[in-house]
């Protein structure tokens, strides 16, 4: 059977997929058992002449069993989920790699700190729909929105988080391999919602450093050229066709 889930490329994608498959197994068994019983009963107890239905109003012991067993499973599932949930969304690991993603109709603005090591200053490196991150390093992503609610979705990373106007929400990821991956918007944000697509390129750390230095140099050059401290946007890389 092919795997319907996309390839997982973040450190936590495995634990999310593991939870998914565990629930799939348990609900799959529950599904087969209940449906088989339903169809079997439909066949076995079809009305036939001379047979009368059994007169019974129920059975307290059975009621207790089929209350307690699912309840126990759900509590167990709750605790297992909580472990994974808190490891992903409960905290952001300490890291120097930070990037700010600002969503707007219908565009992802990716902002790096630039040389001064601080966001929202004139030397920030800003790209549009073109995000580059180093592999094997935790990265903190600060999510913001300028207008409506968007949702920052990286399917292969199993990362999804709404970007909400008025809030800055921190999420994180750590890529496990290099390559190009798509950024999608998962929350309806207007007529261009379907086309709010970006690309995340995961690079080797040295390649990433090189790229970022080039960008920073570009910003400095642009500022010198203009003589004004306006943040220059690096040209967005054309998304692959």
């Amino acid at each position, binding site marked *: 059977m092919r795997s*319907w*889930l*996309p390839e997982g490329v973040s450190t936590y994608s495995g634990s999310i997929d593991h939870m*998914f498959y565990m*629930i799939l197994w348990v*609900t799959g068994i*529950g*599904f087969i058992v*209940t*449906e088989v019983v*339903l169809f079997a*009963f*439909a066949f076995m*107890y*079809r*009305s*036939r002449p001379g047979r*009368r*239905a*059994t*007169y*019974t*109003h*129920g059975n307290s012991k*059975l*009621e207790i069993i089929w*209350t307690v067993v*699912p309840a126990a499973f*759900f509590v167990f*599932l709750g605790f297992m*989920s909580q472990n*994974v*949930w*808190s490891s992903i*969304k*409960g905290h952001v690991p300490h890291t120097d790699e930070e990037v700010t993603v600002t969503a707007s109709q219908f565009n992802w603005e990716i902002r790096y700190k630039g040389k001064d090591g601080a966001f929202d200053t004139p030397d920030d490196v800003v790209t549009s729909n073109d995000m580059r991150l180093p592999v094997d390093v935790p990265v903190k992503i600060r999510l913001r929105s300028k*207008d*409506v*609610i968007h*949702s920052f*979705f990286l*399917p292969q990373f*199993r990362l*999804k988080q*709404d970007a*909400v*106007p*008025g*809030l800055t929400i921190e999420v994180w990821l750590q890529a496990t391999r290099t390559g190009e991956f*798509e950024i*999608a918007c*998962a*929350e*309806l*944000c*207007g*007529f261009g*919602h*379907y*086309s709010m697509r970006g690309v995340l390129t995961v690079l080797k750390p040295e390649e990433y450093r090189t790229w970022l230095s080039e960008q920073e140099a570009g910003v400095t050059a642009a500022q010198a050229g203009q003589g004004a401290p306006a943040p220059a946007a690096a040209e967005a890389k054309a998304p692959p066709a």
Partner: protein
Amino acid sequence: MSEHKLPFIRRYIFSTDHKVIGIQFMFVSLLFMVVGGLLAMMVRWQLAYPDRAMPLGTLFPESVMPEGHIGPEVYNALFTMHGSIMIFLVIIPMLTGAFGNFLIPLMIGARDMAFPKLNMLSFWVALPGGIIMASSFFVDAGPAATGWTAYPPLSAVPDYTGVTLGQTLWIVAVLIVGTGSIMGAVNYITTIVNMRAPGMHFFRLPLSLWALFITAILQLMATPVLASALGMLLFDRTLGTHFFAPAGGGQVLLWQHLFWFYSHPAVYIMILPAMGFASDILATFARKPVFGYKAMVFSLVGIAGLGFIVWGHHMFQSGMNPALGTAFMLSTMVIAVPSAIKVFNWLGTLWRGSIHFTTPMLHAMSFVSMFIIGGLSGIFMASTPVDIFIHDTYFIVAHLHYVLFGGSMFGIFAAITYWFPKMFGRTMNEAVGKVHFVLTYILFNLTFFPMHMLGMGGHMRRIYDPTQYEFLKPLQPINIFITQSALLLGAVQVLFMANFLLSLFLGRKAERNPWRANTLEWAAPSPPPHGNFERIPTVYRGPYEYSSPESSEDYLPQDQPPAHAPVPSRPPAMSPARA
């Protein structure tokens, strides 16, 4: 009764008769079902063939569909109105408006509702709400296009969508329909509490009525919260307030909390009555008492109570504090238990029954069968980490349609085919009914089951053109398959509509109790006259005395006096249901 003296307009239009009002709700809901269904067909066309003109698309004005092509603005309006119409104008009014009205007085042995004029008003308030919603198709810049959830700021600021009057009309329409719901709920609760026939204790109520009773309580408590949220949204749009605008000090997430505080209970408003109907129909055609009647009642109560503390599970990825996510996950896990209990008891009801496969029974059994899938798929999104991935994907779309179509709609089909003889005094065609059932059951699964696969592939909801994304391109054949199944599923519903409409006039005349059922509505003539019963019935037993050793027949109506015991002048107040 003065039925024959009433002029036509008072008998059939501005009627205070609960049965006429129920039938009015039913016809209007069926009409909107056609509209909502056609909108879904258009949505499906676009998802399968994003570059092709829609068949018959050129019938629409060139400004709406240039050369028959659906544009992204129009697409957003299509799924928004599909969801809004199906929820607010089809499923809720059909389950509570049509069946709540028709069944409650008949099944408790009353002549009418407690407040007949309020009842009439509830329909005549709801109808303009529906008309306003429908009229938004014809205004400048089109109808609402922000999803049925209408999240601000998208819904609060016209510039973000380009939709102007349409969104405002949507808010007003939902507000008005909600007001009608509240009126209905007050009436249902009062009627069930006060107007039960002698001997009809609470634990002798059929589960349909327990479900409608609990649903009315949910509506009464939740709908005002929606109304307040809609009011704020309306003010933000029209009066320049900033309840949901961060620039003015507002809170974007406030809407989601208020909306889901209503809309999660509303999910149960849309399924609990169908659960009740399925329970009654399963018992009737298995010729067997409902297994675990009291467990069924308590699980209904449990679902309703817990339903008010699970709303945050719609908001796990919304930016709400992740610790709150944990709390809502645990409450959501707990609410799954009563649903599981109900499934086991339905299976228990069939166990060693004597099952008659009538059309309503087939629909009721498929209700159980499909609700199992919808219930189980809900566990995935209850788990917070799994929800990170599947939230806002087609996995959710699959889940909600298994509950709302597989559950509620099959419940509605079951209820219509079961009570049709009582409502109209005629019988629907069984053969056509069964063909419609088989095709619907198969095509429903072909349409909605593959959506789980789309969701697992990460396919987002509400996107106009999935082929924009590389990672979704391999999934496009599934989209095409789903659309072909969906178009057939839609076409098959013509069978149902034809059977329904033709049977109104040509169906075989129905007897008083064609299914040999126990509950009180079958003690009234078919159709019941104004005032329902020749004589108010006295209730001697619970609703599910099928195949009882007390009777040589395989059923024992609630109002049939015991054979050997003297008729008690007044039944004991607290005798158990199985007496």
